[in-house]
């Protein structure tokens, strides 16, 4: 026995949430490209499974820029006002499994030495509804990092699109149940995801090679084409580095937290002028080490869901999958020697 929701019922569920004051985030089309956005009208949402988004759902948990506190200075008196906590209900609908999977990966990071109430409050207030994938493309490699087109990791509910336009609903958590309770009908129809994307590299083997080859010239060689921007990190659902800056004037302003990327020269540039990661090779090595060695060692999870957003967005056809494929070649060679 399965549970089905029609497209109309799904829209109504979301519309009711919007009118009750909840923030609903859904796939939308802006021009020809798809973006997750907060919607004011349910008809803005494109409610069908999709592989390619220009952004990930990350920004609704860890925004592009976020105020930490604001300040007003009067004479020698400075007043600090903490930014309010996120306190509306948030429904994120239409996420891909590889988007949702980033959330449990990031949870321990934002609750480690510092309890990040910004991330935590958004997490607590949010319900994530995943659409099981119906297609994959050549950039996808969730299978290599423990994911799947029907993975429920990080999801509160997963929806399988059916041929007749309705969805099979499988609730994963109490939040998911609460959202869909009374909205579905019993049925004998069941949905299925697409076949898992194929991969011909072994991430564990590559991680072992990375551990032993910090000084390998391969890092420079594969990185010549990288121009050191922030695109791959900013579209990545798991990359989480940020910079803290003050904006405003001397008398009035705010301290904000903005996305940052380890691929830029400035990221590690010291005030003395020294840069411990002096070349793009060193910066790409950092990226791959953080994802496949450092983060797994510290938090027991790879910092990559295999979504392929990085390589889809890279202007020079690089990104994590091409990097893994290059490293797999050398890892296999060194194994055979």
């Amino acid at each position, binding site marked *: 026995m399965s549970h089905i929701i029609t497209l109309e019922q799904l829209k109504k569920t979301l519309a009711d949430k919007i009118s009750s004051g909840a923030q609903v985030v859904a796939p939308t089309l*802006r*021009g*020809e*490209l*798809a*973006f997750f956005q907060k919607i004011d009208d349910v008809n803005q949402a494109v409610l069908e499974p999709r*592989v*390619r988004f*220009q*952004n990930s759902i990350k920004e609704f948990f860890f925004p*592009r*820029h976020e105020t930490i506190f604001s300040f007003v200075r009067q004479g020698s008196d400075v007043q600090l006002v903490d930014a309010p906590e996120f306190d509306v209900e948030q429904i994120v609908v239409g996420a891909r499994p590889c988007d949702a999977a980033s959330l449990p990966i990031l949870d321990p990071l934002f609750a480690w030495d510092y309890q990040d109430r910004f991330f935590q409050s958004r997490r607590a207030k949010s319900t994530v509804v995943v659409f099981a994938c119906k297609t994959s*493309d*050549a*950039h996808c490699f969730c299978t290599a990092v423990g994911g799947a087109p029907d993975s429920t990791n990080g999801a509160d509910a997963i929806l399988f699109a059916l041929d007749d336009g309705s969805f099979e609903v499988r609730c994963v958590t109490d939040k998911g149940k609460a959202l869909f309770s009374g909205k579905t009908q019993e049925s004998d129809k069941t949905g299925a995801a697409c076949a898992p994307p194929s991969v011909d590299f072994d991430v564990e083997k590559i991680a072992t090679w990375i551990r032993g080859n910090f000084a390998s010239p391969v890092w*420079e060689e594969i*990185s*010549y*084409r990288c*121009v*050191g*921007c*922030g*695109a791959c*990190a*900013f*579209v990545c659902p798991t990359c989480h580095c940020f*910079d803290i*800056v*003050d*904006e405003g004037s001397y008398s009035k302003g705010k301290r*904000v937290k*903005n*996305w940052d*990327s380890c691929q*830029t020269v*400035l990221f590690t540039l010291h005030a003395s002028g020294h840069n411990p990661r002096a*070349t*793009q*090779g060193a910066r790409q090595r950092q990226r791959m080490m953080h994802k496949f060695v450092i983060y797994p060692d510290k938090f027991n999870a790879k910092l990559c869901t295999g979504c*392929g957003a990085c*390589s*889809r*967005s*890279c*202007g*020079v*056809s*690089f*990104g994590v*999958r*091409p990097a893994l494929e290059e490293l797999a070649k050398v890892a296999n060679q060194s194994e055979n020697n």
Partner: protein
Amino acid sequence: METELRNAIRKLLEEKTVDVAIGYGRVGVNGAVGATFVTNPDDVDRLVWNNECRQNLATHLTRAEIKKLGKPAIVVKACDARAVVVLCNEAQIKREDVYVIGVVCDGIETADAAGNKTGALMGKCLSCVEHAAKNVDLLIGDEAAAKALDEKNAPNAKSVGHYEKLAKLRAMSQKERFEYWREQFSKCIRCHACRQNCPLCYCNRCVADKNRPTRIDTSSSLKGNFAWNILRAFHLAGRCVGCGACAAACPAGIELDLLNLTLANAAEDQFGYVSGKELGELPLIGTYSPTDKEEFIR
């Protein structure tokens, strides 16, 4: 053409005329084309030339990692070649320090969101009237065919592709135009892929990166995004060669090329200046001529 290109580069590397060749190769997912660096003459078969060679490779000429490899040969389309000229004219590189290989181009195809080619030409190519690269050391491809394409495009060059979009933009009211750019800029995530892929954004420390004090908001708020995109456009006024590398790299799909075209078009209309045309030409913004129009001074 591809074989000719490979042979030429093999010879340059064998004879040690250059130390590294910057060309295109199938390096990405599913054979997607991206920059490829060849130092060994035996590796020239990694190089390709086709209508997916979207990137402007000149951006690599000023990167520290690439400079370390020695004297470069670089593969350029006509529009990319103009960027090499600007780099020389702005004293970023010396012309004799780089071996420029022009490839005759018959247009580059746009890519869809997954990076697959669409069959449609890029806007800049629809209005291109220079299919054979100029100011090069070696030109590969059929010059006569290039000339024929130039002549075919010439009559409509200023009304198709980008120019068609520009005309639409100009026909809008100021309010509509502002709304158009507001929607575009609100998508910006401040990844600076536009800057990093642009051969003419070569500053070691971009104003957007100044933080003692901050010059423009680094936040990707609407205010910060307007500041960033307008700032970049202004810094490219009279300099942008219209290669479209910025827009092609922008993960948000912002029509940056249209923004730059607005200024390039003003430079051409007002001062008869086309960036990157001639070696040795003085930069438009850096020179004054008594014949310059001054109508804008009121």
